[in-house]
């Protein structure tokens, strides 16, 4: 596991918390439902460590919303749910029993999940670029269903590359039902190092 200084870890955690806080506020307003979002766990892994982590925690069927970014930082931010968790979120937010629609994600459900994921990710990357005054360009948000490594675009990345993956567990509580997802922020080509440098210059 990449070792972060306390300041670095605190700043990262704070940035993500600001982001998810903003996202939870938006969801609250938009849906008129009590939505809370907390990040109980945060860690940074190298590519090899991620492979090792996936061996232990990989889930077969997953759904993700992803936004790519490039500029001073290159990579992508994704929020990943188990397929079941994804359906659950869509159901809770629309008050519908979308689960009746068999296991296939229909367009409505994909739409809901994309929007929720989009809100959370915009919160997180927005807060990251705001706090650190970074100028980034973003790809259009995408909805994906695949295995995690493919979704993160890391299937064909060789070993020994300069990739770091920030992993934050995100626990949603919607109308008192708890669902957890995971935020993966992939930093390619050593851009995580740049991010840490930026954090260090904040002089928190």
């Amino acid at each position, binding site marked *: 596991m990449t070792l972060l200084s306390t300041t670095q870890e605190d700043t990262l955690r704070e940035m993500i918390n600001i982001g998810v806080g903003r996202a939870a506020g938006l969801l609250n307003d938009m849906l008129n439902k009590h939505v809370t979002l907390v990040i109980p766990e945060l860690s940074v892994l190298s590519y090899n460590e991620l492979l090792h982590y996936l061996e232990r925690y990989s889930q077969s069927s997953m759904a993700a919303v992803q936004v790519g970014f490039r500029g001073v930082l290159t990579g992508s931010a994704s929020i990943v749910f188990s397929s079941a968790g994804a359906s659950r979120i869509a159901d809770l937010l*629309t008050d519908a029993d979308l689960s*009746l629609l068999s296991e296939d994600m229909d367009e409505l459900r994909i*739409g809901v999940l994309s*929007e929720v994921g*989009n809100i959370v*990710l915009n919160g997180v990357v*927005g807060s990251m670029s705001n706090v650190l005054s970074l100028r980034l360009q*973003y790809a*259009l*948000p995408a909805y994906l269903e695949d295995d995690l490594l493919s979704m993160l675009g890391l299937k064909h990345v060789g070993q020994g590359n300069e990739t770091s993956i920030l992993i934050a567990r995100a626990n949603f509580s919607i109308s008192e039902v708890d669902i957890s997802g995971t935020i993966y922020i992939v930093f390619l080509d050593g851009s995580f190092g740049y991010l840490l440098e930026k954090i260090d210059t904040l002089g928190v």
Partner: protein
Amino acid sequence: MDNLRVLDFVPLGAFLLDEGHIVRFWNSTLEQWTGISRAQIVGQAIGEFYPHLVESHILRRIRGVFAGEPAVILSAALHHHVIPVPLAHNANGLRVQHTVVSPFARSTDAATYDALFSIQDVTESTERAQAYRQELLVREQVADALQDSESRYRGVSEMISDFAFSLQLQHGVYQRDWVTDAFQYITGYSAADFNTLDDWLAMVHPQDTERVLRVFQTMRLGWADEGLEHRILTRNGDVRYLQTYYRPVVDMQRGDVVRILGAAQDVTHRKRTEDALRASEERFRQIAENLDALVYIADLETHEVLYSNRMFERFFEIPRSTFLHNHTVFASMLPDDARQALLSGLTETLPQTRKLDLTWQMETSRGQGRWLRLRCFMVNAPNEHGKMSRYVGLMDDITEQKHANEREFALMLEREQVQILSAFITDVTHEFRTPLSVINNSVYLLGRNQDNSKRESYITLVQEQVNNISQLVDSLVLMAGLESSVQGDMERVDLHTLLETISDQIHHKAMLADLHFSVNMPPVPLVVRGRVTYLWQAFVSLVDNALRFTPSGGRVTVQAQVLGEHVQVEVIDTGRGIAPENLPRIFERFYREDHAHSTPGFGLGLAIARKIIERYNGKIHAESELNKGSRFVVVLPLLTN
């Protein structure tokens, strides 16, 4: 805005808003959908046309887009229609839309962004999904209904199995409508004794009346109960346990409860069995509570601890409650290796072999070292999920037992040493007795014999034997010295010089015995740590030994070389060699391959050599082939500075 014209050719509604929410572009699809022309709307505030788009929850969402932050999704399910467009076949319905709002750079060096709304019409696919959902919903309802009637049927069959009754509401009182025959058989009362709800309640055990009443109260609201277990008193005063189901029948038009159906099953036998079980469990508990051992029962599946006795709490000094939710909690209090053994034992060994037996040492909070033994075995009773996953853990403090074992071991060791010592004494006595008997004989003959030349030879014999004894004493003193601590032996000894000196002394002796003797060494100091007199003794013994067992014309070579951080000294001879079966024993005290003792020596030289080499962290071993020769190899650590 010319570059936006391309958006006139896509089947998407597209418009551009600036930061002030003024429409900057409106594509032809939107013109078609809304009937609002580009000329009408461009330059106007979007709020004038579509006030819902400037409501705070939308503005908050898209605010970041004007700063170049990532695109925003307004999904069909949550927003339905960003630009309301009526359905062709139903003027009240609106087309469903999925919208993406993305930042659109105003110029190439953009620091300012407009928001580009791209609207996809998803009405058809949504309708398809809804139709599908509707169909599934109907199917689900049919399944529900079927299930419901099945449960009703189940209710009926339950009624047949024991007894059932019906109470009908008449003038505000529940009157018995009918009751099945088994009622009489189970309660001892006749149907004539059961006329109203109050009659029934009177049969219920006084301690359960309140619970039953509560069920009837909620039932008046039309709620069916989940089933209730309560006691009744039979006519002759026996207690019987009933599993009862009460169901209200509602008048669909008025919504009132008009009738209550009751079904009861006699579960007395089951209840008694449960009580007996509980009693035996209670007995177990009493025994376990008073045991000196730590006892607990846990479930491997659920990790739940079902029981742990008082000793557990006392020993680990944690409240029982912290342990209850997870049976491996106490593992965290164990030393690393014990913890790992326990955790893997519980996940692997115990489920497979149904037994687990672990012993470990740990310090208690009072700093006492204790030996603990944990034995686990699976219980042959299923848990509530029907799985055989319960086990009993029994932990004993075996410190005393362990200490007793250790004492016994120490005693054995002592006994062993005494045996070795007495064997040694026997050996020594034997070695002394031989020369002494020679001396004794010689002195006796010396007294009887007048022949001077004979007397001379007896005196020489005595002198030789006295010499032998004194050598033996020297060796024994040396050995005794070697038993003492190594502390004083901190000298730096250069083996190069040492072996050269030995070589000088041996040369003469070798020449007399007609042996070819040579020493090969690298031209560097070979410094080791030790005491020079001891190391001298060790190498002299090895070389002496080689000379002694090599017939004339043979060759003895001493060879030294540096191997990494060690020096290796080999003593190689072309002597008669050592039989393979004797090779392992040659370093023992008083061991002589020549049982007739025809060669000189006491069998102490090699034993002493080994003791010395090992004293300085060295190693010695021998290789040999009969009639070809032997090779003794010594390896000692080199002093680096």
